[in-house]
Each structure stands twice: as C-alpha cells, then as structure tokens.
C-alpha cells in the first residue's frame, strides 16, 4: 500500500517538474567556432552574455555551442533540440542555404528561433532576425571618406571574400561615391579578410599607383596588412586608411589619434549579445520581439572611440 | 593468308639504337621462328609489326604492299595480332568481356551479352577450351589465359599471330596442347611468328628460322637446315662449348660464415649451414622450399624467430640489410625489377648505391662515380647504355650484370645470389658463371640459389638441398647429379641434415 502511494507521489512530482520545465526558458546558442578575429568576438560575447543572462533571469538556462562548419552546426541544432530539449534557439548560421532546413525543423518542433547576421533562405524558418547593417557599413564608410577627402582624390579598395555580405558593402559604397565624381576608384581587389593578403594586395597597389589618397580596407584585419605595406614602402601620399568591424587594436589607434587610422566603422560581433538579450526578454516576458532588428554600423572617431573599446574581448 | 616483308628496319629509343637495318620475309601460312639472345631486338621488332612502335627507318610490306601502322588497332585491322608475354587481358572482366573488349556488341543502347557469350563459346572451342564465358579471367590458370588470348585474336580475324615466348610459363602438357593448336592454325592458313628461347621447340615447330643478334639480322633459313647447336652459335656469335668455367677447389677450407638454427616463420625451420672461404655453395629445392625466404630472413628482410650467426668465428648480429652490409654480406634478389635494380634511375647511381660513402667527401664526386661505372661496364661487360641512361633501357642480361656489379661494388666477403641467371640469355649466363667463379677464386664466399640444376652442378663446390623449409641433403662434388638432387628435393631421400 505504502509503495503504491509513494510511487504516485513520485510520479506526481515528476509530472510537475516536467510542466515546470515547459515554462523554463532553455536557450541554445549556435555559432561558428572562432576561426578568425570576428568570430572570436562572437564566441567571446556569446559566453559573456550567457553569464549575464543567467544572473538576470534565474530560471533561464543558456547552452553555447560552436561549430567548425555548416554540417557540424546542423548536427548541433538537432542535438540541442533532442538532447538538451531547448525551446529557444539563437543561431548565427555558418551558411544560409544548408542550415535553413535544420532550423525549420527545430521551429516545427515549437522552438522559438532568432537568426543572427546571416538570414536564412526561407524567412518562415525564423521567428526573429537580428543583423548587422552591411549596406550601412559601405554607406557610412563612403560618406566618411568623401568628407575627409573633400570630394576629391584617388582611392583603392580591398574587398573581402566574394560573398553577399561583401557585395552589399561594396555596392552601397559605390552608390554613395556616384555623388562624388571627383573621387576616383583606381581599382578593387579581394584580400579575403586576412592580413597577409591585405599586405600583398596593398604592396601591388603601391607599385601600380603612384598617387593614392586613401584606402578603403573594409575590414580591420585587412587594414593591419595595408598599414604594414604602406609603412614598408615609406609612402607619404596616403592620407588615411579606413577599416571596418571594430577590432580593439584599431579602435585603440583611433582613440590615440593615429595618423593613418583616423576612424573605424562598426560591424560589431557584439550583435550576438543584443540578439540573446532581446530573445531572452521576449521569451521570459512573453512580449513579441521586434523583427527584424538591425544593429546599425556606426562611425567611430576619436570622440566616441571610448564607447567601443573592449580590451578584454579577443577582437 | 598473309605475308610480311621487313626492309631496312631501324629503331632508336632516345639515343640507344636497338635495331639496325633489319630485313627478311615471312611467307604466307608458315610458322616462322624468331630467335636471339635477350636484347637482340626480337621483342622490339615484333612490337613494330604489331603496331605498338613506329620504326625509326625502314618499311614493312604486308602482302607486298607498303603499310604504316599508327597503333595496334591499325595492325589488327590487317589481321596482325601480337599475343603479349604479359597478357593483355583485364583480370576482373569475364572471358567474353575480354574477347569483345573495345568492340562490344550492342542491341540498342544496351550491351548484347547473350550473343557475345555465345560467340565467345565458339571462339573458345576453336582453341580447344570449354569454359563458361562468364567466368572472370582472374579465376583461370596461366595456360587458359593464354588460350583465351589466342581465341580473342582469332575472333578478331587474325591472319598473322605473333607469339612472344608462349611456352615460358606452361607445363609440358600445356605446351603440347599449344603446339597442337599451332599446327591446326597453320592448317587453317594462319601465319605464325614464334619467338622463343627454347631451341628444341623451334626445331620441332617451325618451318623457317630467323636469327637476330645485337639488333642485326644474322640469318633466315629453313629450320631443317640448322641444328640446335648451329642456332645457338648463330645467336651468340661464337662457339658455346664451354658454358661453365673449370672448377677449382677452394684453397683453404676455412669457415667464413656460419648460420645456426635459423627459423623464418612459415618458411624455414632450424636451418644451419656454414660457408667456406673461396667456396660456391649451392641451394637447390623446389618452388616453395623456402630458400629465398631463408636468406631474406638471415638478412633481416623478413621476421625471424631464431638464428645465430658468426663471421670468421666471431658472433655477429644481423637485423637489417645495412647491418649485413657493414659485415660484408650482400644479397642479390631474384626479383630484379622489383627488388634488385632501380629501373628508373641511371646506371651510374645504380652501380654506386651500396658503396656511396666511397664517393662522399662529403659531397659526392660524380666524376669518380662515372669513372667507376666505365671501369665496371668494362669489367662486367655491361652493354647498351651510357652511364646516364636509365637502367630500364638495358636488356635483361645487361641489367643482371649491372645488378651484380652493384652488390659487388662495396667489396663484400659473402655474396648471396638468388637466381642470378633468371631471364638472362645464354651469352650473359655464361659471363655470369665465369664471374661467379672469378669471385670464388679471389677468395670471396658465394651462395647461389637456383632452380636450374645444371647451373648448380656446373658451378658449385657443395650443394644444399632444401625441402619444406628444412635442409634434406648436402651433396659434395661427386654426389651432385640431377636425379640425386631431385630425390632430396622431393623427399625421396634424406630426412634432416646440417650443411
């Protein structure tokens, strides 16, 4: 008799716990592994935010997973749903197309999905979208450069890797430049968002063009290589180099009033924090989340650099 | 019916000329034997006729008309088919697929397997084979493969068959079957060009004989006009009375090398023998008796479970060929192309490979190497290539002499030769016998492993016979005879012995 009663009690408790678990927010965060500076920043901010969220909302559980390619990320999403029983997913997809289906499958199981930075091919697979502003980065950069050059001069452009992101930035940049016929784009080449290629491409630009007034490196890693190349060639015609993203070393240079790095344009890896925060708030309070949320690209100059300097972040 | 005439055929491979102005005729419907030592140019000439090589100069006439073959297909269209020494068959395809390879029958888009199988059965019957045409080539024995190759040629309407040493891998029974087939084909009007080393076959089978030597045409004559001895003399270009050098007894019967209770798992059990100064010690036995494996075990080329060794009375350790070389023991493998020589390397580095420290000061003195090569080419009579020519350009006999020169270059005390005359023509054989004898006379100790009993009897001072991984007999000079060796090798005589 006693045994049966005890069994019933235990069962009841289990059911209750299960019901409670239903209400509890379990958030899976799926992001690319740190394989370059920007993703390293993403990993840093994701882990940082996990701590803040768990402090702020005691009931919440946050699981951060990094993947080294799209297929590993797809498997992780499955595991998060079936093993960790998440009901909320914040994902920065490695690639859009191959991850659309796995994310849609998670959503079909009732998981609330927030997609960050790279949109899925099927927008129905997501509940919310938080992204950086790629055209904005191009636009802000172009406007700054045009202003600094007084609407006149020769510039060269170092691009990233042939992708949609790169095209959006480049197209928006060129769109603005149409308004400044006095600025001549000498040439544009891919530097693959890395330092070594930035160095090489810039070296060849310097060989080829005797008068360059400014360089749009588009990315802070490329800018590191560009600076070295200019330094080695001892060229003084270049007035400034504009990178992008908001790497701490570059922000520091801006803050310190560097001669060539006079400004930077943000495309902050910190957007993962915004995404996680907004999603958690929406889930806990039950209020709808604003979508899409665009994190604007901001011009960083000596005046406001302090706000964008995070010495503890790897990026 | 098809006749062929060669006129002024020359062939150069790079800088090496292998055929000089060869001209002779093959009559319609005859069996024409082509003989010559290795490197005489037989195979090259046949490949030219088969369309595999183009002549550097000269002209081939088929049925009186000048022809030029761009490839073997062009030759095949005229009915000339070369049956390769290493068969040209795909092991993983069926017999029928091989027979119809490259000209498969179709029904619409699909292969017509049924008809091809049926036609293959008919083709196989022509050569006296009754096999399921769907069987994989891999499952056939060598003789069957050869007959399939012939059936394939016949099914392609061959009017002239070129057979390159067809009996080299056949048993006597299988050889007889092949001869019957050749006679039958001849009766059907097929012309046959037959290349062989075996003069008794040539004598028995052919109507006409052509002799090549050193790339030159020596003679074409009716077979009945030549004796085997005359053929051999024409091939070598001199009298061949003395194949073996006279034996001289080792002066001091001092033991140089001792092996005790050597066991190589699966191959040799508790084998012990000793080798004396200036001695040629033979190792006889059937295939699989474990002779090669025993010595590979001794050299450390195979794992060994037991065995102790002594050189000149002092115990030595043998774990690797390099350790053996340090002790002055060298081994020449029976597998010349796979283990003996770097076929793709030049002659000079091949020769000096085992004694390079002699030329390193510390940079290699290549001109000293070249001088050494010239010297050795002379001493070992290595012909057919300059020091910088690739070893693959040499004929089998010259390759073997180079391989010998190579292992002797470090000036070893103990020389182990595994099948030193395999695939070598008569002239080179004789040279190698004299060379081995010369080594013994200069005080080296030589071990010869061979499957040719005549060679062992003619050469060795003492003879070890092995069977199933054990020594079954030790024969001295008086006891050596073919029946006696066979008796020990097959188990009719002898239990276990120690040499």
């Amino acid at each position: 008799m006693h045994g049966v009663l005890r069994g019933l009690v235990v069962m009841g408790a289990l059911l209750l716990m299960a019901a409670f678990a239903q209400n509890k927010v379990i958030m899976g965060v799926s992001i690319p592994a740190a394989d370059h500076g920007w993703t390293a920043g993403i990993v840093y901010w994701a882990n940082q935010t996990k701590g803040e969220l768990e402090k702020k909302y005691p009931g919440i559980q946050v699981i951060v997973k990094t993947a080294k390619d799209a297929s590993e990320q797809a498997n992780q999403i499955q595991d998060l749903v079936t093993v960790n029983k998440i009901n909320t997913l914040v994902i920065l997809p490695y690639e859009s197309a191959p991850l659309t289906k796995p994310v849609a499958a998670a959503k079909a199981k009732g998981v609330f999905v927030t997609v960050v930075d790279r949109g899925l091919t099927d927008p129905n697979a997501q509940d919310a979208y938080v992204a950086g502003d790629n055209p904005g980065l191009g636009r802000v950069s172009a406007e700054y450069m045009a202003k600094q050059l007084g609407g006149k001069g020769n510039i060269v452009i170092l691009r990233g890797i042939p992708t949609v992101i790169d095209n959006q930035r480049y197209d928006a940049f060129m769109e603005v430049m149409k308004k400044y016929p006095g600025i001549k784009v000498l040439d544009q080449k891919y530097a693959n968002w890395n330092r070594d290629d930035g160095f090489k491409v810039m070296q060849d630009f310097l060989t080829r063009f005797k008068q360059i007034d400014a360089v749009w490196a588009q990315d802070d890693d490329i800018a590191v290589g560009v600076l070295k190349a200019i330094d080695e060639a001892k060229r003084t015609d270049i007035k400034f180099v504009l990178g992008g993203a908001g790497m701490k070393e570059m922000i520091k240079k801006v803050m310190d009033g560097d001669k060539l790095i006079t400004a930077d344009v943000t495309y902050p890896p910190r957007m993962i924090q915004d995404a996680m925060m907004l999603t958690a708030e929406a889930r806990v309070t039950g209020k709808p989340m604003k979508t899409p949320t665009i994190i604007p690209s901001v011009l960083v100059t000596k005046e406001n650099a302090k706000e964008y300097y995070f010495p503890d972040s790897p990026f | 019916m098809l006749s062929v005439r060669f006129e002024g055929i020359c062939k150069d491979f790079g800088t090496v000329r292998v055929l000089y102005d060869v001209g002779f005729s093959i009559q319609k419907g005859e069996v024409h034997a082509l003989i010559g030592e290795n490197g005489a140019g037989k195979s090259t000439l046949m490949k030219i006729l088969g369309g595999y090589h183009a002549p550097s100069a000269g002209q081939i006439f088929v049925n009186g008309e000048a022809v030029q073959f761009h490839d073997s297909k062009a030759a095949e269209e005229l009915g000339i088919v070369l049956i390769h020494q290493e068969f040209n068959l795909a092991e993983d395809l069926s017999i029928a697929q091989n027979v119809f390879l490259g000209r498969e029958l179709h029904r619409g888009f699909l292969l017509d397997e049924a008809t091809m199988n049926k036609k293959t059965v008919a083709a196989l019957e022509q050569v006296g084979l009754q096999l399921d045409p769907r069987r994989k080539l891999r499952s056939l024995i060598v003789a069957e493969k050869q007959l399939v190759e012939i059936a394939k040629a016949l099914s392609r309407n061959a009017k002239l068959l070129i057979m390159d040493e067809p009996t080299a891998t056949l048993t006597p029974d299988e050889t007889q079957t092949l001869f019957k087939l050749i006679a039958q084909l001849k009766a059907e009007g097929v012309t046959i060009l037959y290349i062989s080393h075996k003069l008794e076959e040539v004598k028995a089978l052919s109507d006409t004989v052509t002799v090549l030597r050193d790339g030159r045409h020596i003679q074409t004559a009716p077979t009945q006009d030549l004796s085997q001895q005359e053929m051999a003399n024409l091939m070598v270009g001199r009298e061949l009375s003395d194949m073996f050098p006279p034996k001289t007894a080792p002066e001091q019967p001092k033991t140089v090398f001792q092996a005790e209770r050597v066991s190589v798992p699966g191959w040799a059990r508790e084998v012990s023998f000793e080798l004396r100064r200036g001695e040629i010690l033979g190792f006889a036995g059937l295939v699989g008796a474990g002779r090669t494996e025993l010595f590979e075990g001794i050299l450390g080329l195979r794992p060994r479970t037991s065995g102790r060794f002594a050189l000149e009375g002092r115990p030595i350790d043998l774990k690797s060929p390099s350790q053996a070389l340090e002790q002055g023991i060298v081994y020449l493998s029976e597998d010349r192309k796979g283990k003996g020589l770097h076929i793709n390397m030049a002659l000079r580095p091949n020769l000096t490979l085992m004694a390079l420290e002699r030329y390193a000061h510390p940079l290699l003195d290549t001109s000293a190497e070249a001088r050494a090569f010239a010297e050795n080419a002379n001493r070992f009579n290595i012909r057919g290539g300059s020091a910088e020519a690739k070893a693959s350009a040499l004929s089998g006999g010259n390759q073997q002499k180079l391989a010998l020169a190579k292992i002797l270059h470090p000036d070893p005390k103990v020389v182990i030769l595994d099948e030193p005359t395999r695939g070598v023509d008569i002239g080179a054989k004789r040279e190698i016998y004299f060379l081995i004898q010369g080594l013994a006379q200069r005080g080296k100790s030589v071990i010869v492993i061979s499957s040719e009993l005549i060679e062992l009897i003619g050469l060795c001072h003492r003879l070890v016979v092995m069977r199933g991984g054990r020594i079954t007999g030790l024969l001295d000079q008086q006891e050596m005879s073919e029946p006696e060796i066979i008796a020990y090798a097959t188990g009719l005589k002898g239990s276990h012995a120690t040499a």
Partner: protein
Amino acid sequence: MLQPEKPATKSSKIRFNLSGWGPLLGLILLCILATLLNPAFISLDNVFNVLTRTAFTGIIAVGMTFVIISGGIDLSVGSMAALIAGVMILVMNALEPRLGGGTFTVLVGMLLAVGLGAIFGVLHGLIITKGQIEPFIVTLGTLGIFRSFLTYLSQGGAITLQQDLSDRYSPVYYGAFLGVPIPIWVFLAVALIGGLVLNRTRFGRYVQAIGSNEQVARYAAIRVDRIKILTYVILGICVALATILYVPRLGSATPSTGLLWELETIAAVIIGGTSLRGGSGRITGTVVGAILLSTIGNVLNLTSIISVYLNAAVQGIVIIIVAFLQRGRR
C-alpha cells in the same frame, strides 16, 4: 669476355632537353606579358616584392621537394607554420620582461622555431615509418591539429608581438643586404643548399633511390626509415625558417596564417618537374615553380583587364599551360 663497349651515341650529350625548361619558359613568358601590360612589373621594387613574398612558400617548397621525391607528402606545412609563429610570438612576449626586448630574445624565439619544426618533422616521420600510416593521412591529421592549437592559443583572434620586439625583429623581413631584401638571401641560400644536398650527397641520393623504388632501396641496404624521417625533419626546419621570416612581416599570427600554403608549395614542387609519385625532381624547378605561382598573383593585382572574380581561373590556366610545357619529362 672483354668486349669493346658500345660507343655512347653522340647526340645524347648535345641534345637540348627542352622539356626540363618548361617552367622557366613559362615564367619568362609570363614576365614579358606582365611587363607589356604594366611596365611597373619589371621595376626593381616590384621584383623584390614578388621574390620576398615567394620566400615563405619557396623555402617550404624546397623541403617539400625532398619529401615528395622520397615518395611522401606533407599537407600540414601551412598549419605548422601558423602554430610555430604563434608559439614563437607567445614565448618571446613572455620572455621579454626577463630577457628584455632585444636581439637575444628574438634569437631565442628563432631557435625555438627551428626546434619546433624539427620536432614536428620527427613526429611525422616516426608515425609514418614506424606507425606505418600513409603520410597523406598523418599530415592531414596534423593539419587540423596544428591549426586548432593555434586557434586555441589565439582564442580565434591574433597573437601579436610586442612593439619593442617587433621593432627589433622587423629588419629580418624588411631589411636588406647589398640592396637585396634579407628573405631573398635566405631563400637563395636554402635553395642552393637544398640543391647541393639533393644532388651531391649520399642522403640526397638515398632519397631519390627510396622514391624511385622503396623495395629496391631496402634490399640495397639503405636505412629507409631513417632517411624518410630525415626528409620530414628537413621540411620541418624549412617551415621554421619560413616562419622566422614571416613573423616580422606583420608581427602577428592569426588563424589565417599560412592558409593554403600546403597547396601552394606542393603545386610549386610539381610544376617544377618533380613527380608526385616520387623518384626524381629538381630544386631549381621547385624554385621556378614557387616564383611562378606568386608572380601570377602579382600580375593579376597589377592589372585590371580580367575581372577579379576570375583570378583563380587565370591561375589554373597558367598552371596547366606550364604543365604542358614540361610534359614528356616522364
């Protein structure tokens, strides 16, 4: 038994072997074309730029030539360079407070790099020979291992050399001797020594013998395992030398350091006429191959007649054309 040797055919010594000159011919043609497109190409500065850039992959390619001739391969060189660079910078930064930001610290860093390269080489060699695992698989494994360790050490970002050390170290890349940049001198020296070792030493001969036919080499009493391990050690040291030149260029190591160097070096070796199956090859060919590859990139940057999207296609076409020019060597 003594018969006169067949006279060696005269033409063998006189005949000009065009096929061996394929890569050089290709390079010269490319240079002429580039000069026509943009005369700045032939300027001394640009030539030095290209050669200095080539130094990294060129030095590694010299080491790779040994490995490939012996019948091996090493896919890990790019990752190995990245890891060596990262460790080197971290150690130099850590030593700076105690040893100061001077030449001594830099020298310690260089020595460490060479040591690491040699150790990685020994490791590869041992796993390949004693462990009897295909070199392709072993080095594919270490390719991942080395790079993830670097990524771990850098937390995905950059490992940056401290400013004082960077200033002291930078002449190794940016400095010049007799007007020629240091990396070019090092490249030249490595190539010369490599050529000498390959063609004029016992070791070089053994490497070729093993690659040509390992069995034959084993039967000819060559210590095959030892020689093979040594080829990987040589390659490891070459990677270390390249890294020593690389670090002062940007003063940092990132997860993109040395990316795809393995393909570039292997391509340089093969374009230079070394057979991927091993056995034979030439250091001069490798050097020309390496220069050719970086020249293609340089020419594309100096001109804009071809859409940037087609860069890889141009590289592919040039490589295939050069392969055509040296066809028939085998």
